[in-house]
């Protein structure tokens, strides 16, 4: 457990040091949000109604762009060999890596949610639900991204392919997250879509460390 925390600490520090990478992702997120009123027209009512969906779309595109960081970069700089040689279980290292990615991503999105909501005129009561959907949805995105990343490494393929592979699996997250926010916007209960998001985590979390570790090991062969 001590090793796990040390690894997690390292991975979070590593993310925090990649300031230029995060800055360009944030810039991308902001640009998408700022351009929306120009694309959809300035009617406040339309923007207010579409706000959660637009924010989630920007978040999803941003997470797609950040995917190649997970394992592709480690394979490129030789860190992956060191991970594979480590006496620790590869699954432990993988979980630490993905958990760090999840935590940093949620933190970034929560901070960005406020200005984005303000810009699009989203109702204040939707904000807590939006943040909750980030907390539940981002782990699914990161785990799926980890699987796709490890498979890309194993097949020695271009990470661009990864995006194509992932989109279909990202759609349920998008649907449930946005319908939770829409339910909150009309004053209804967001419980059902939130439970679906939780179910997605429960479905993907247990097998993914093993799938990822197996793909990374196999990729050496």
């Amino acid at each position, binding site marked *: 457990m001590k*090793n796990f925390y*040390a*690894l997690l*600490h*390292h991975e979070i*520090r*590593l993310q925090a*040091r*990649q300031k230029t990478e995060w800055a360009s992702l944030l810039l991308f997120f902001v640009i998408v949000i700022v351009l929306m009123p120009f694309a959809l027209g300035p009617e406040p009512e339309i923007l207010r109604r579409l706000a959660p969906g637009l924010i989630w779309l920007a978040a999803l595109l941003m997470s797609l762009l950040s995917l190649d960081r997970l394992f592709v970069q480690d394979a*490129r*700089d*030789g*860190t992956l*060999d*060191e*991970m*594979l*040689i*480590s*006496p*620790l279980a590869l699954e432990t*290292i993988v979980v630490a890596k993905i958990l760090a990615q999840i935590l940093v991503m949620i933190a970034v999105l929560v901070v960005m949610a406020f200005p984005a909501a303000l810009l699009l005129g989203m109702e204040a009561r939707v904000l807590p639900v939006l943040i909750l959907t980030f907390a539940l949805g981002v782990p699914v995105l990161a785990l799926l991204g980890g699987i796709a990343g490890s498979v890309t490494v194993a097949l020695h393929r271009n990470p661009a392919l990864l995006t194509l592979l992932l989109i279909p699996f990202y759609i349920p997250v998008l649907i449930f997250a946005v319908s939770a926010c829409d339910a909150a916007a009309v004053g209804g209960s967001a419980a059902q879509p939130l439970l679906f998001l939780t179910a997605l985590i429960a479905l993907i979390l247990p097998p993914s460390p093993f799938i990822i570790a197996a793909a990374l090991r196999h990729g*050496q*062969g």
Partner: protein
Amino acid sequence: MLRVHNLSCRRGGRVIFRETGFATNSGGFALIMGANGSGKSSLLRVLAGLIAPAAGCVRWQDSDVAEDPAAHRARVHYIGHLDALKAGLTVREMLDYWRALHGAGQIKIEQSLAAFALTSMADRPIRRLSAGQKRRLSLTRLALVEAPLWLLDEPTSALDVTGQALLREVISGHRAKGGIVIAATHDDLNVPDAQVITMAGGGR
């Protein structure tokens, strides 16, 4: 003692090397020689357990390493031709990561930094190091955690004369303690008693 029997390696349907065999005793230094593409790096990766051999086996003290991969990982240091460094971290933070990755065991951060003359750069970001300094930092792993089997792929690349001397010193210290070093390199690291293993390649 490391014993390699009839080892063959195949990647992507191509035979990289075949029927390679040798044995290295405790304290031994084996130098892998061969032309580019003759399978030196692949041999080291097979010995490290990173790739499974197509045939043959690697034995450590008379037991097949494939039977207990976790034990084998704990006894190996593998330094590939990539430095495995993260540009955003400082030298000391990188060592902290390796410490976490190698789990328990004897950890000697200050001595390791001193062994490769990096003490004065401990808090410098890795992106500000020169290629030779990066290589030295990468090699610091050898001194950081005890492991009896060192597998070095071109360890002297980018190293200057001083760096090579430091590496030689660390290697002879390791051999004096009974450790084994297997290295693929173009210059012979001035090891007079090196056992030379010549790779002939796949042959087709």
